[in-house]
């Protein structure tokens, strides 16, 4: 009975969304250049944020899973902090670092004339900040549960640390890496709070969640339709990935 309540809590809002959405306006909404731009931006930013998260998150997950060192628990806690941090706070925090008067931003601006906030890069950075922990946590769990004697076997067969990682560790934990990447991507796709704070509202940073929020203020029906479009796109991508990577292993 309680389990049914849980399912209802997850499913009912989506049913409500579909029920109340003015379906007739679907094509006019999709035709708006702002919407198409937002959809495209969302896909680009969340994919870029995922690539960034894997590139720097995998070495972190590996270090956390494979080495005993002082402060490891602290590093892990810090690495997953964005998961529990309100995204708006995350956005503000990013501004204090990358803003024109920020810790690094000032140096970037004075030295190279580079401004990060309110650009496409800010949107990517904000999404990666919020979504990377999902990848790190999943990847670390996968690395920990792997039998390390596979790595030992590779080392005795003449594989360096690097070769062992690429040829043995990564292939063996691939399901975890894919699951973590998908979680990370899905979280990045829906990111709103940090993005609007750090990247703001502009044609370069209006991802779907921002577009939905902006539309909602003038045209609540339109916002419902856009929400469904976002759900449909993310489901389509997840199913396509599943068919391609997870299905191939069965």
């Amino acid at each position, binding site marked *: 009975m309680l389990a049914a309540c849980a399912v209802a809590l997850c499913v009912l809002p989506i049913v409500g969304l579909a029920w109340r959405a003015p379906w007739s306006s679907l094509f006019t909404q999709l035709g708006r250049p702002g919407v198409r731009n937002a959809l495209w931006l969302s896909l680009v930013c969340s994919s870029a944020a995922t690539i960034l998260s894997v590139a720097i998150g995998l070495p972190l997950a590996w270090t956390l899973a494979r080495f005993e060192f002082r402060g490891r628990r602290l590093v892990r806690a810090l690495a997953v902090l964005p998961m529990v941090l309100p995204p708006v706070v995350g956005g503000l925090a990013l501004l204090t670092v990358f803003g024109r008067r920020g810790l690094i931003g000032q140096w970037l601006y004075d030295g190279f004339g580079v401004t990060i906030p309110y650009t496409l890069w800010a949107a990517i950075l904000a999404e990666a900040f919020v979504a990377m922990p999902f990848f790190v946590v999943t990847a670390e769990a996968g690395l920990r549960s792997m039998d390390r004697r596979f790595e030992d076997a590779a*080392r*005795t067969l*003449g*594989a360096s640390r690097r070769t062992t990682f690429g040829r043995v560790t990564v292939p063996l934990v691939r399901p975890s890496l894919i699951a973590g990447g998908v979680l990370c991507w899905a979280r990045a796709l829906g990111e709103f709070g940090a993005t609007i704070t750090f990247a703001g509202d502009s044609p370069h940073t209006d991802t779907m969640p921002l577009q939905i929020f902006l539309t909602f203020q003038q045209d609540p029906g339109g916002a419902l339709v856009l929400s469904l479009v976002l759900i449909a796109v993310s489901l389509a991508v997840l199913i396509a990935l599943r068919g391609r990577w997870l299905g191939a292993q069965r």
Partner: protein
Amino acid sequence: MTIDDLPAGHTPRQPAAPDEHPPDGSFLACSGRRRLGRFELAVDYAVPAGTTLAVVGPNGAGKTTLLRIVAGLLPLDTGVVRFGDAVWDAPAERRWVAPEHRSVGFVFQDGMLFPHLSAGENVAFGLRCRGVRRARSAKVAREWLGRVGLAGRFDARVGELSGGQAQRVALARALASEPDVLLMDEPLSALDARVRGEMRSVLAEHLASHSGVRLLVTHDPTDARTLGDRILVLEEGRVCQQGTPETLAPTGYLSRLLDPGG
């Protein structure tokens, strides 16, 4: 800082220390200590080339730890591991040769074949890591599969192999790069009795044709007597006895091992 941050690769050669062993690079010597939590392994032994040393002892005696130290999967706290005049591990001199630069082959208890590779790719793995080209390493891997009685199974998935077949592939994989030191950790104990006798004779045959040092960890007296030229008895991290099967005194663990009913 981990041990792998120390300079890797072969350490420069140095004149062999004067001792009872011939300085011609044909023996493995290990003497030293390693602590793991509350357990401490303290050993001192040497094995000449062409000899199989069977390491026996009860569970938790440190048999696997002993092998891991020789393989370079675990550094010594104090002491020396040496093969011939190459020093593999000497913490006092900050010398360390990473496992991939030691000429060892390791056969694990349950094979540890890489499940994402085929049987043949598993055997070729070591050669590929050591820079042998794909075609050449595949050819050598096929030969080795033939030698362990698995000709034609190059493309077999690891999951399709029976326990005995998997262990033969593991043996072929360890031997394919022709290591100076072959380390075997209970290579027969995961097999059922019928396959076990068969695998024992495969093992005996390959041990006889291997010219280097062999270390065989086992808790089975038959394995120790039939495969070992010499036996080392390990109990609670200490060497109790060393000798040939004929000269060992049947005391302690060995007496229970040889005469389980008594």
